[in-house]
């Protein structure tokens, strides 16, 4: 990336005052990146920014509370930071934010699907428009836009909303490739039994690993998650689909008005359950009723923590 060196310089400048800076670096193969904790000057060189920088590093912030932390953020990641600030879950003065203009990150599931069972990845070259992957048997050229994560195809915030250092030129407000919630709307047009059955079928394969929860930057209950608590005792520990669905509903409702749709829950799911859709549904309703979007204004009050005496967009049932 053009601004990668500039970013490294900024980090180098700030690092002396920080305990750690969160970024990304290469991983087990050329097709993957992994979170990178920069503690010393020499760690800086390993920093890599690319469409493989998929992780939302804001997830680590609440756990690092009390430390001086730098964090490199994509536009979407920055909304999680905003939300954490708004909810008093991190302290602004402890956080140094490095922003850059993000042109989208890949969806590894899409790539995996495109490659088929291709064996190990030897090289991976990413240009502005294509990803060329050399596997053991052949080279695959994939169109970048087709490999982008869904959230990038509808992205309206490519630049970090909040930052102390911003490198590169801001993109501003782009024209999204797709309208948001198209998939949700398609799902909503299904019949009631189809919708009900869908979740039973999808969540039937849930292994209750809670990766969705651990990846979520706003899941802050940590050791006291409703999923494993007996007081309150919302869920049993049994392997039944009812409690699996219920957990997803709890997650979605606890995210209502807070979720920034970073998609980490779904990305983290080892069995590819489309759990983001439930949060999107919440968000769309919140947007329709309250014209509210989470993670854009650190000073805003989330709609479920406030009220109006007269609610403009709520029509109560007449009996």
């Amino acid at each position: 990336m053009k601004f990668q060196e500039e970013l490294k310089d900024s980090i180098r400048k700030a690092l002396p005052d920080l305990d750690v800076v969160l970024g990304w670096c290469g991983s087990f193969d050329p097709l993957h990146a992994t979170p990178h904790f920069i503690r010393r000057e020499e760690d800086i060189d390993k920093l890599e920014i690319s469409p493989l920088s998929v992780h939302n590093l804001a997830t680590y912030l609440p756990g690092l509370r009390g430390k001086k932390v730098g964090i490199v953020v994509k536009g979407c990641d920055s909304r999680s930071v905003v939300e954490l600030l708004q909810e008093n879950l991190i302290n602004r003065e402890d956080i140094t934010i490095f922003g850059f203009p993000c042109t989208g990150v890949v969806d590894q599931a899409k790539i995996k699907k495109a490659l088929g069972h291709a064996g190990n990845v030897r090289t991976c070259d990413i240009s502005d428009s294509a990803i060329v992957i050399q596997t053991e048997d052949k080279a695959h050229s994939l169109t970048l836009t087709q490999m982008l994560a869904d959230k990038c195809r509808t992205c309206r915030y490519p630049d970090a909303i909040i930052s102390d250092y911003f490198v590169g030129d801001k993109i501003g407000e782009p024209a999204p490739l797709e309208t948001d919630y198209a998939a949700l709307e398609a799902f909503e047009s299904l019949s009631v039994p189809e919708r009900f059955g869908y979740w039973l079928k999808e969540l039937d394969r849930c292994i209750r690993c809670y990766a969705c929860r651990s990846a979520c930057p706003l899941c802050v209950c940590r050791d006291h998650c409703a999923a494993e608590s007996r007081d309150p005792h919302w869920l049993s520990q049994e392997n039944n689909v009812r409690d699996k669905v219920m957990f997803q509903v709890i997650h979605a409702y606890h995210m209502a008005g807070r979720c920034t749709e970073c998609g980490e829950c779904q990305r983290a799911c080892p069995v590819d359950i489309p759990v983001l859709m439930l949060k999107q549904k919440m968000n769309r309703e919140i947007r329709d009723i309250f014209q509210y979007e989470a993670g854009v204004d650190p000073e805003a009050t989330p709609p479920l923590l406030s009220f109006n005496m007269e609610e403009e967009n709520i029509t109560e049932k007449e009996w």
Partner: protein
Amino acid sequence: MPVLKGKELRIVGFLCNWCSYGGADTAGVGRFNQPTDLRIIRVPCSGRIDPLFVVKALMNGADGVLVSGCHPRDCHYAEGNFYARRRLEIMQRFLPVLGYEAERFEYTWVSASEGQRWQQVVASFTDQIHKLGPAPKIIGPQAADTLNQMAAAL
């Protein structure tokens, strides 16, 4: 005891102590006849009602859930029903994505003096649920029906 087969469906009500529970009492004192499906859980305030209770009830086999609190501005705790209104509205709009009709859940306001209104609310909500029929069940005796219905739909 299970619901009376063919006669009743399972309807759960969450009522605030000060207004709606009193309204239901007033309806009783006035001998305003009502369908027998509804079972009332008393809570201090509609603001105490976590919308997840509604989902929990449905997932555990309820066919309908009714929440009732004090009229806006008349909350015994000043603001509880204002919070409740936002949270319950969100949940009502959310339910369809799970595969429950939004009409399986309603929230409303009934004051302690409105016995007749309570009768009206119970009668029409019960009717509404009977029109929808039993909610899909995940586990239990009706789960087989649900699975058959799903198989037919998919």
